[in-house]
């Protein structure tokens, strides 16, 4: 097996070589530093898979059990490693099965490149076997997509795909490649893409707006920072920490921003949003300057926009111009990459201490602790709570684990109670709320950081949506830890039914299979816990395992997640019970 570079040396002209489009795809991936891809073969992508067979020592392919699993694995890999995740599928149903992952990656700004096979150029539009217009279908859920119909287009388009996926506000890119383009030959020369005329991924920071932001922050009596994933994507964790410490500003996070700053940092006041912490939500409506950094004022964060932070001057640090004034009007907008803009801001910030204001958060925390947290973490009732399971995982993993969550009650509980020391440790489906995300995303997360403990926390509903990916764990011996918090319900929907639909539990009661037997069927070591006395040892055994491990915890069937901002209500109206 020879690389393109090696082949180039042998080539008489020392410039280009003729290779097939399929081989060119592999070389493009290698040139971009890709060594791991997820996918599922099929007729229209077989030439590329045939080439993969030859390049097995350089490019590992993980056979997902469903294309959706491949995309979520690519997402988990990207989110933990900071690199671009890659997924591949055949045409038609293979391609359409990628759509959920693409949509998830789009709304959560995750850099992935998906490659799909397509019927030959002469068959396009003829309703040929396994033909779908995947470019049309995926347009609303991709940052960019393109159909390659000629082999000669491959190097340039692939380079552009990776550049677009990872630059600026990252996102998913789909490249559809017709079968003839995979078979045809081309002169292969690869140049990495460094710019696209029409695309400016990094807005130039405007010093005047940064000065205006600094003035508002310096003059504020009750400043408050809410940060989002923009901090993690922009690698601005250190700058954010310096800012809050220098100015003494209490700071809260959206679930996508979680773990950017250690949980136990004294100025980290917790989570905003529908099931966020009491203080960070209520005090949003009492601060005088709200500094939003790398977050997009999602409706789950703001509740009713009519009553959101109306008293505050809003300063919005954001890389995407379309997010400015989209939901919340900014008094000062600072465009740019968070690392760059915060570095420009920091010298303008005066040292300060807002101890009295911070004490307001502490008081609210105490109220929340007495009413909610104590009962979640150290319950006196008989049934196991999700909160105490998370707390045991914190203890056993010494707050060092990557926590991957699915969607539902367990997700909110995990985001509330998981503790982190390191950035890029909280992997969840924030924007799309994709049930079925966690199991494949955990596989990807583990492969993106093999030296880290990866614990997937999943509800019984979401687990069954992509349960087939246990096959990947078995086949590749991926040592992820899987915790299913089983309440025999679609818990979050059931909670809403209880609170807002007079407890009419329409189709939310789950009659579940024997999860332990299923895991054992995949030769994964398993355990089940239904009593408090056994929880600690079971979690410790799971964390200590060097192999994949499945733990089912039977938790309270009808527990609710509080605090809660009812849909469309004000952040001030957060309910503690």
């Amino acid at each position, binding site marked *: 097996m020879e690389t393109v570079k090696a082949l180039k040396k042998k080539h008489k002209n020392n410039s280009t070589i003729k290779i097939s489009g399929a081989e060119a795809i592999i070389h493009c991936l290698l040139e971009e530093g890709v060594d791991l891809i997820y996918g599922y073969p099929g007729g229209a992508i077989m030439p590329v898979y045939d080439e993969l067979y030859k390049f097995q020592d350089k490019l590992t392919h993980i056979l997902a059990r469903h294309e959706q699993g491949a995309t979520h694995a690519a997402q988990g890999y990207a989110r933990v490693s900071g690199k671009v995740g890659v997924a591949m599928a055949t045409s038609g149903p293979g391609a359409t099965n990628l759509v959920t992952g693409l949509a998830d990656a789009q709304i959560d700004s995750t850099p992935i490149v998906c490659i799909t096979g397509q019927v030959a150029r002469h068959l396009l539009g003829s309703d040929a076997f396994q033909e779908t217009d995947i470019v049309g279908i995926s347009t609303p859920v991709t940052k960019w997509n393109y159909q390659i119909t000629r082999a000669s287009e491959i190097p340039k388009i692939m380079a552009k795909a990776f550049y677009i996926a990872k630059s600026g506000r990252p996102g998913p890119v789909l490249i559809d490649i017709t079968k003839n383009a995979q078979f045809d030959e081309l002169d292969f020369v690869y140049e990495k893409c460094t710019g696209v005329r*029409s695309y400016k991924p990094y807005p130039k920071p405007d010093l005047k707006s940064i000065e205006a932001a600094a003035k508002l922050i310096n003059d504020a009596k009750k400043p408050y920072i809410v940060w989002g994933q923009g901090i993690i994507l922009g690698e601005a964790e250190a700058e954010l920490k310096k800012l809050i410490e220098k100015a003494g500003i209490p700071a809260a996070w959206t679930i996508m921003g979680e773990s950017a700053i250690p949980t136990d940092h004294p100025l980290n006041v917790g989570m905003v949003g529908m099931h966020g912490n009491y203080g960070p939500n209520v005090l949003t409506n009492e601060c005088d300057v709200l500094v939003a950094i790398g977050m997009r004022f999602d409706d789950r964060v703001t509740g009713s926009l009519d009553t959101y932070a109306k008293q505050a001057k809003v300063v919005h640090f954001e890389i*995407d111009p*379309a997010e400015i004034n989209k939901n919340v009007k900014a008094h000062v907008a600072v465009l740019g990459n968070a690392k760059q803009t915060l570095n420009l801001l920091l010298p303008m910030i005066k040292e300060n201490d807002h101890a009295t204001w911070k004490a307001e958060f502490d008081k609210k925390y105490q109220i929340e602790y007495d009413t909610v947290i104590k009962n979640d973490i150290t319950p006196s009732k008989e049934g196991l709570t999700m909160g105490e399971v998370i707390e045991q995982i914190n203890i056993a993993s010494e707050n060092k684990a990557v926590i991957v969550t699915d969607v539902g009650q367990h997700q909110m509980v995990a985001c509330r109670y998981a503790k982190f020391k390191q950035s890029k440790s909280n992997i969840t489906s924030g924007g799309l709320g994709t049930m079925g995300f966690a199991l494949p995303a955990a596989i990807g997360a583990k492969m993106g950081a093999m030296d880290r403990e990866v614990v997937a926390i999943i509800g019984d509903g979401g687990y069954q949506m992509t349960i087939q990916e246990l096959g990947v764990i078995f086949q590749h011996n991926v040592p992820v830890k899987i915790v299913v918090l089983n309440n025999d319900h679609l818990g979050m929907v059931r909670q809403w039914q209880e609170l807002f639909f007079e407890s009419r539990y329409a189709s939310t009661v789950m009659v579940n299979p024997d999860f332990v037997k299923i895991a054992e069927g995949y030769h994964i070591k398993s355990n089940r816990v239904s009593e408090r006395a056994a929880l600690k040892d079971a979690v410790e055994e799971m964390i200590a395992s060097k192999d994949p491990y499945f733990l089912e915890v039977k938790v309270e069937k009808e527990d609710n997640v509080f605090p809660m901002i009812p849909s469309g209500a004000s952040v001030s109206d957060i309910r503690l019970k």
Partner: protein
Amino acid sequence: MEKQWYTISVYSENNVGLLNRISGIFLKRHINIEGLNVSKSEIEGVSKFTIVVFTTEEWTRKIVGQIEKQVEVIKAYYHIDDETIYQESALFKIKSDLLFDERQIQNIIKESNSQIVTVARDFFVISKTGRRNEIDEMHDALEPYGIMQFVRSGRIAVSKAEMPITNLLQEFQNQ
């Protein structure tokens, strides 16, 4: 906020599939595209979309933000009608008998500065270029006599203010 007519101008790369991306942005916001024209622009290799919508300024601004976010879009602007010089074209197909039997039709053609494009045995075709309301007025005037077919083009527009778009785009690229 009050709804009014807005003309959105989008300067973009000339790539397949971009129309799908742009129209999808209007679809997501449930805003109807009232007029659409795509042509080459004054800059070589750059296409110009002229899109007409009837909505509020806030929605228009947000839509333009989303359009500008598309990788292949170079720059997008929006203007109200008073800020642009614009034209639309329309064709009216009328039964030939009426041209001779209804003298008023000839007056309508004269007064509206429209042109007869073709006359056949069974029908004749009138072409009218002008502002949207002028075309609407002509349509209203002809309708009682019977219009066999009617079609109106998308809008073409230039801004009243000097808008050295080539320089603006150059500046944008140098940012």
